[in-house]
């Protein structure tokens, strides 16, 4: 597969597939749900919605056709932990999906795999085939009468916004990946109008760990509101980039120490849609209640030009905005234009404030998470790096240096 990029031991290394599913089959579905609720597990894709709440709402829906969807459309800049999980721990993901199917009484699972990871498909198909042979997928799973569930892989076609759950469902149904209005939520009106849960790759893997090791074990790590461990994809200016497992609530400074990124000027937590944390705030914690992340950590060394960072992220959003709603479609190019003005040293303070207020409008008025979070990086750089971005002379250069 891919070259090993995991740094240090992961919990997933020591979890053997089969045990979690056995535990889930040995107790009623409600008890499994209670256990996940007790662990406090929240969605590992970044939004942090409590997994047990999503699952219990889907479980309550009274319909014959329900779906379990695994969101493997990992497109957030700086995130690659799902690639590693799918390469090395695919069994845990499929097992987590099977447990989810047991909890909500679904018969069909779908992995939405991004086109950029199509080289993983063969490996995933063979993992599915061996699970079918072992009776862990298909009819009467684990010998349990009436528990039928199978998983198929559906390929994406290169679209970041399809990582948004309703856009993902639209794409599965054969439409453009344009997010839907919510409510109704996928848990009652999802794939083909049926109750559907959409969870991140990592979330499913943690469910298996919780069933094997217990909710108490999971809860004993992390913070009160953000329990457990999480995988982080670390890249940028550090000596040891790769995938790490850290407890939630780790501070930015501690993380930098672990990965060899000391002396960084700023850390982008949560990818292009996340926040840029300057060195002066490195005591902030990475958790849902402070700086949340789906796992992306990008480190910027002292020599990096933060305007270039903002430009790169905004070009990304210009490209990936679905164009459906006005604040996002029109706002993102306007912010990018602002960055270009700053690079030319042609942006007044009044206009910069105007742009930040446009960012606020986008945050409030955009239809989906993409538009709501697209201005984040720009706004935090405009706020925390004013000494660096204002009054530039020459094209894209700071006074007397090449930036």
């Amino acid at each position, binding site marked *: *597969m*891919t*070259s090993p*990029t995991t740094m240090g031991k992961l919990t997933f290394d020591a979890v053997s597939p089969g045990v979690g599913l056995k535990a889930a089959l040995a107790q009623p579905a409600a008890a499994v749900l209670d256990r996940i609720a007790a662990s406090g597990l929240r969605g590992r894709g970044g939004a942090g919605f409590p997994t047990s709440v999503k699952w219990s709402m889907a479980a309550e829906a009274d319909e014959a056709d329900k779906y379990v969807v695994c969101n493997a459309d*990992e*497109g*957030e*800049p*700086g*995130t*690659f932990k*799902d*690639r590693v999980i799918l390469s090395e721990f695919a069994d845990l993901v499929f097992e987590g999906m099977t447990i989810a199917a047991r909890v909500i009484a679904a018969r069909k699972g779908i992995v939405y795999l*991004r*086109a*950029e*990871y*199509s*080289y*993983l498909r*063969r*490996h995933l198909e063979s993992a599915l085939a061996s699970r079918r042979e072992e009776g862990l997928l298909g009819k009467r799973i684990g010998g349990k009468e009436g528990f039928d569930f199978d998983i198929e892989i*559906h*390929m*994406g*076609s*290169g*679209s*970041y916004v399809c990582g948004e759950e309703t856009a993902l469902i639209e*794409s*599965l*149904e*054969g*439409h*453009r*990946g344009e997010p839907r209005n919510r409510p109704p939520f996928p848990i009652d009106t999802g794939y*083909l109008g049926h109750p559907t849960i959409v969870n991140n790759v990592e979330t499913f893997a943690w469910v298996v760990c919780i069933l094997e090791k217990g909710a108490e074990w999971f809860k004993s790590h992390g913070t009160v509101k953000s329990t457990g461990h999480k995988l982080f*994809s*670390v*890249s*940028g*200016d550090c000596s040891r*980039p*790769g*995938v790490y497992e850290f407890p939630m609530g780790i501070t930015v400074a501690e993380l930098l120490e672990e990965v060899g990124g000391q002396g960084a000027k700023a850390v*982008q937590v949560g990818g*292009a849609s996340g926040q840029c944390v300057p060195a002066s705030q490195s005591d902030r914690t990475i958790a849902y209640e402070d700086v949340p992340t789906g796992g992306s950590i*990008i480190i910027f060394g002292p020599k*990096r030009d933060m305007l*270039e*960072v903002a430009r*790169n*992220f905004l*070009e*990304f959003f210009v*490209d*990936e905005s*679905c164009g459906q709603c006005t604040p996002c479609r029109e706002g993102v190019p306007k912010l990018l234009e602002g960055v270009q003005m700053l690079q030319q040293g042609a942006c007044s303070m009044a206009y910069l404030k105007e742009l930040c207020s446009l960012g606020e409008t986008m945050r409030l008025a955009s239809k989906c998470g993409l538009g709501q979070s697209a201005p984040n990086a720009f706004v935090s750089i405009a706020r925390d790096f004013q000494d660096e971005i204002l009054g530039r002379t020459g094209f894209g250069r700071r006074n007397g240096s090449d930036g």
Partner: protein
Amino acid sequence: MLLTERERLREELIALADQFGRQRSSLMPILQEVERRHFRISEYCMQVIADLLDLHPVEVHSVVSFYSFLDESPRGQFVIRLCRTITCEMAGKDHVARQLENDLGITFGQTTPDGKFTLQWANCLGMCDQGPALLVNDQIFTRVTPERVHGILQECRQTFGVHAVAGAKER
């Protein structure tokens, strides 16, 4: 297009519709397969697929134009997608891009006259710890340097006829 060619294509699309099922949710898998075989999805294909799935052709076109891995105009046998996202940029993707343009004689968004290569930008390929990264069809190359570009292209040229390199191999 010759009438016989059209008929052959039509039969091929009917077979695909039967394989994946004639419902809307089969649209993406059908389009992906057409793209893989023919390096494009022509207007004629969109029309036939629309008829088979009982959709308006505009619906099919709206899907094809939305996704970056689906092409209306012909692309090359090998699509080279260079990651332009932040960490690959920090790792020096601009130099790789320049060398790709030099060695192929085209700029980003273009296809070589012999129909072999198309050069495109990609957004985050998920190889941020090993950048700069590029995809050639479904094969990933990491830590690409300008010096390695020539070798990668040569390797593609030598595998003519086989456009999709099966399996995941990393160099």
